[in-house]
């Protein structure tokens, strides 16, 4: 099945801005981050279709996953 992945700020600079991504049914967000080669510590926030999601959430065909870097400071 296919999902769309969007990366922002430092994550985008490291990899890509937006891409279609093949994944297997039942695959969890944590494993997709691993496939991308992103250190988990670099990802601060995950959105699925615009809503906050947890690492162990299972993605569905057609989902849009957004990965945001950690925010901080002032």
């Amino acid at each position, binding site marked *: 099945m296919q999902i769309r992945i969007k990366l922002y700020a*430092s994550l985008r600079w490291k990899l890509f801005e937006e891409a279609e991504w093949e994944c297997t049914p039942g695959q969890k967000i944590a494993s997709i981050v691993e496939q991308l080669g992103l250190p988990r510590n*670099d990802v601060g926030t995950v959105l699925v279709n615009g809503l906050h999601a947890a690492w162990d959430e299972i993605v569905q065909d057609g989902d849009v996953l957004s990965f*945001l870097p950690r925010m901080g400071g002032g």
Partner: protein
Amino acid sequence: MSDNKMMSTNPESVVYQRCTIDLATGRADFAAVPCRNLEDVLGGFGRSFQILAERDVANAYSPENPLILNSGLLTGTSVMTGMRSYFSGYSPLKQSGTGRPGAMWSTGSGNFGNKFKWTGLDEVIFENRSEAPVFAVLRDGANGPEVELKPAGHLIGLTGHAKIMALAAEYPDAHFAAIGPAGENWETNYMGAVVMSTDNELKSGEPKSRFAGRGGMGSLMGYKNLLAIVAQSPDKLQKITPEIRDVNRDILKSGGSARFQPTSQGGGGGTWANIEVLQVFHAVPLNNFRPKGCDNVERLFRDEVEREFEVATEACHRCGIRCHNNLFHKNEDGSRGKLAAKFDFEPLILFGSNLGVHNPKEVCDLIHRCDLLGMDAISLGTTIAYLLDYNERHPEAPILNGATFGDYEKIAALIDGAGRGLYPELGRGVKRLSEALGETAYAMHVKGLELPAYLPDTNPGYIFAIAGGHMSMGTHMMLAKEGKHSLDEWVQAITSGGLLQVGYDMIGLCKFVGVGIGHDIIVRAVKEAAGLEIASADILASVRRAYLRGLALELRQGFHEHEEYTLPSQVMDDPNHKVTLPKFITHDFLAQLRERVWSVFKPEMEGLLPVLKG
């Protein structure tokens, strides 16, 4: 500080060095003061607020309001970021409905804190005010710390940076804290910052200062006719033991600090990255904190700005966290030109999108003007945003120069005028301006302190911040980061983790260390660099007491526990549906939040303040 080994149970075994300078007479008294509690040991506002709590101060600009300069326990050590110094006093800006001023502190890095600590002093209390402008020289003398007040007529009217460079020519082994023209114009400008020198600044001659901006401590300094402070000492770099080396390595390796590192080193590029993250939710402040969903803020993204400027990431003295993003003009041949500005999230937004200015060159110029004049970028930017909003709503009767959003040249004139004391409407902050105009709903402040560049629609925690919205309550990004919006989650965040952020404003380290104040890294740092064994739980309890003492002090100064612990009413009465984050802040939500938070805090606040004499 003495170097006694100390367990958490006997803080009085630690002694700190205080100098009290009476600016009216020039007299200086030195004292070795035993710590009363762990807050005194950790230092910063934890110590200074106990001094402020002993004073009955009804007006910030009165002789009985002290200006306290102090350090934290780890200032001047070899622990990474350990170079903070703190300025505390009753604020001209933060004011309760009764008219009494709120206690404030403000802090900055640079090398001034180190030099100050190395003079042998931990604390200087500036009492009263001088008849004529002076600067204070604190030095490490042959028989201990020495102080001297010197005439400062030659510094009048100079920018903060120019004052620093003038003094540097006279005191080559020193660092400096100065005020700019804004602080000198304290009667009409309450948001003067303390401008602090950096090694980069002194070496390059470029205005790469750091700022203790919040709460108008620079204006208080101006009221006292104290134009600058010189901290003169040879460098006394602490030996980096294997244990301290490990602590510093762990700070650099912690995910908390990595996000502030340069992108070239795989980091997040500093706070600048926040703009792109918040834009995902259309939550970047625009036109006075009112995003419209199609906000044109992408021009301020880092990669866009890099097309026009060279971005250099630099660090404070000996710090491995290179968090400063300094922008330089590019010469025609592609080489690096003059410094344009430092570009971090707060000034970038508050002098950019929130004023309707999207051209990076123009934003740079506005930031630069504010910095040179020595004003708090948050207070000034947010107050100007209100004025532009007011003028847009009242085209028939605009105020001052009639500027509205995006009027770069008129905004530049407003900044210059405020800094030179010509626009008290701006210089006295958004609370007073909005009350004078009778339109307070969209005045972005809490308790008289202007809001930083995070939407109030996303952070009810602002109401329990005691020294500026995002620096003294660590909840400002919780909604965007985690999506949490239930009452239980916000009560929990405010009453537990959020308040602990202020611990960094005690201990002498920078928040960009990025770990919780009770983290093992902090415990080890205190043990190795200060020789004190203090358990994590005791650090956490001390920070909590210090925060709650600050809150108790607010109530004693007349802040109303319901009416003044609230957000700008626009947030509740006219929610912004362009922001894609949950809209959960209603009047009822805030009322319940106050009730539940106060029910946790109030029993713990009992007994934290001394009884005032008389």
